[in-house]
């Protein structure tokens, strides 16, 4: 029921057919199978918690959720005595399925990886988390209740669901979220001593002929990925990092895909430039998951009255983009807020520097 009352937007997920298709690999031969040297045994059962963290450090695994090093994250979780460890496969943005697809097709590696991470943290409860409202996942890929004996929790509610994950595990003590892809890499590091040289990426969008999830070598370009999957037509523009919060990639020939990329989308340039003025309907305030009033924030930004923004709690904006999505006047509210926040931070830094200089 929690999901019914949450704010946000209901999105068409558009994950198919990439989600149902088998995960494919697309590796650069020079970097495949890079191993690190270690005397530790290649068996998870024989390792102690500290040793697993040490292996994560040697393998240089990065968590695709937030860009943290996995060993730092596990160390921190160990120190704060985390009670719950969640393998995060919540792909709540349309088109993106680069966490869910590896979880479904590399079940053993993901499950064992989560167990290893749990051992490193000090045996907390473990779960997988998947978004509930995957509207277009049909019965064929109906998601299991358990994977490798680990319970799957479905995160309910409307679009920005990922930031609400903590609330689902609230009653059980300190919770730590770890991305699925980094868990798979942890498994490989422990059992094969492999350095993380690949990442999982969804290649999708209107212009892609065969939308697929790929495991690619770090450092490939979007153009190479499109060659692998085939382009149905010349893309209008290329987006890296998800359809709601990603960024336009101005040069797909030289951009390097990394751990945090998660998705490479080739989209059609079909939206015409709209020149509506804000009609003041207030839909942005209705959908904001943080219960802010983007209408007034945007208006004060346009007027340049930055001193008013603190009153409207602009710092609590999570940048999910629901306000821009719903806006009938097609105003880039989320983008404006992001820029204003950056500018305010810059001004603050400048002020502090001036004060320090004066002292």
């Amino acid at each position, binding site marked *: 029921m929690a999901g019914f009352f949450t704010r946000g937007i209901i999105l068409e997920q558009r994950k198919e057919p990439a989600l149902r298709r088998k995960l494919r690999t697309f590796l650069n031969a020079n970097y495949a199978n890079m191993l690190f040297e270690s005397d530790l045994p290649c068996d998870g059962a024989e390792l102690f918690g500290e040793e697993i963290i040490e292996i994560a450090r040697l393998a240089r695994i990065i968590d695709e959720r937030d860009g943290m090093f996995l060993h730092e994250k596990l160390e921190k979780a160990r120190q704060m005595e985390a009670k719950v460890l969640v393998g995060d496969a919540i792909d709540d943005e349309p088109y993106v399925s680069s966490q869910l697809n590896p979880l479904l097709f590399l079940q053993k590696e993901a499950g064992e990886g989560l167990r290893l991470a749990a051992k490193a943290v000090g045996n907390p409860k473990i779960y997988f988390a998947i978004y509930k409202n995957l509207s277009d996942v049909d019965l064929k890929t109906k998601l299991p209740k358990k994977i490798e004996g680990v319970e799957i929790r479905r995160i309910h509610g409307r679009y920005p669901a990922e930031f609400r994950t903590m609330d689902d595990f609230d009653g059980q003590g300190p919770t730590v979220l770890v991305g699925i892809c980094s868990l798979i890499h942890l498994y490989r590091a422990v059992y094969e001593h492999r350095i993380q040289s690949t990442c999982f990426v969804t290649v999708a969008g209107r212009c892609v002929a065969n939308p697929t999830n790929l495991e690619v070598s770090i450092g490939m370009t979007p153009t190479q990925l499109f060659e692998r999957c085939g382009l149905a037509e010349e893309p209008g523009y290329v987006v890296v990092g998800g359809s709601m919060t990603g960024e336009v990639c101005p040069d797909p020939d030289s951009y390097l895909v990394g751990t945090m990329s998660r998705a490479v989308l080739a989209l059609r340039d079909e939206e015409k430039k709209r020149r*509506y003025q804000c009609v003041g309907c207030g839909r942005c305030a209705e959908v904001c998951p943080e219960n802010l009033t983007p209408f007034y924030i945007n208006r004060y930004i346009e007027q340049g009255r930055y001193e008013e923004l603190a009153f409207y709690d602009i710092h609590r904006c999570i940048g999910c983009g629901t306000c821009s999505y719903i806006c009938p006047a097609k105003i880039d509210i989320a983008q404006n807020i992001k820029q204003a926040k950056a500018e305010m931070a810059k001004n603050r830094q400048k002020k502090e520097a001036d004060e320090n200089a004066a002292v």
Partner: protein
Amino acid sequence: MPQYEPKAPYVRSRDSAFTMMADMIIAMLPLYFMAFYFYGSRALLLGLASVAAAVISDLACILLEGKTPYFRDISAVVTGMLLPLMMSAATPYYVVVSASVFAIVFVKHVFGGVGQCAFNPAAAGFAFAVSCWPAQVFAYPAPFSAPGAFGSAAEGLSSGPAWNLFQGGVPTNDILDLLLGKFLGPMGLTNIVVLVTCLFYLLFRGAVSWQAPATFFAVMVLAVFLFPRIPETGPMSLVYEATTGMWVFGGIFLLGEPGTLPKRSSSRLLYGALAALFTVLFQRFGQVEQTFAFALLLTNVFGFTLDRGSERLLRRLRRVYIATKTKRSEKKSAQRA
């Protein structure tokens, strides 16, 4: 590469300002059809004249401001269509046209155009017409009397049941006629069945938010039911007031005007209640028979204040919530230690 820089998010909702306004227009079409049925082609011509005046003055204002006109911005058409519906079908053309020009030029564009207006343009245009030509606006032709399509149609006009109510008397109309809209009244306001259908259409399409109309109609119905201003029982008073008054039409089409409506849902609830309160007070102590437009203009003033107050309350609640949450988690970790 695209001609303009696309910005996140790259998927957008299909609704636009155009579809919102188009929904309003679609909702008004049955009202125009009923007006045509009762009063003939003059009803449609009044609408056309008003829309033409609104669109032309809107275009002129935009050009004078040095902006480029945008053909998808059809808010002027909505304002133009709303105005004649509130007036008698025999209103002279110059009244409708000047009301519509006043609404666009002096209410909409003086404050900065779309979404910036401090007062509801259609309500202000109606108030302007009532203040300048009360006799013409409130003199109604009988249904099916077909006033002449062109020129003045000042013959055979009389006041309707709304005037009786204003005078403190009970209208003598048949109840069925009242419910079907077959009585002397403004050309678009008399068909309560059609109006309620329009409300459901607009709510379903999301063109009107539910909060303001909900409290507005709740307070209005309660006030009319419990404190009738005529010597009649509550239910009868409700039937008379709802069928003859402008507030049903206003609550559906004017109250939800996006530019003047507060943005937070809590302040929308209060706003609706406030509009109802003012309408009732104006009915009791006002000097004209249709008071909703004036009450709405007064309510418009409080829109921003309500939003600011609601935001202040929200800020406080947010901080209290975060404080209790951190306190609870601290307590838990202390227990564990």
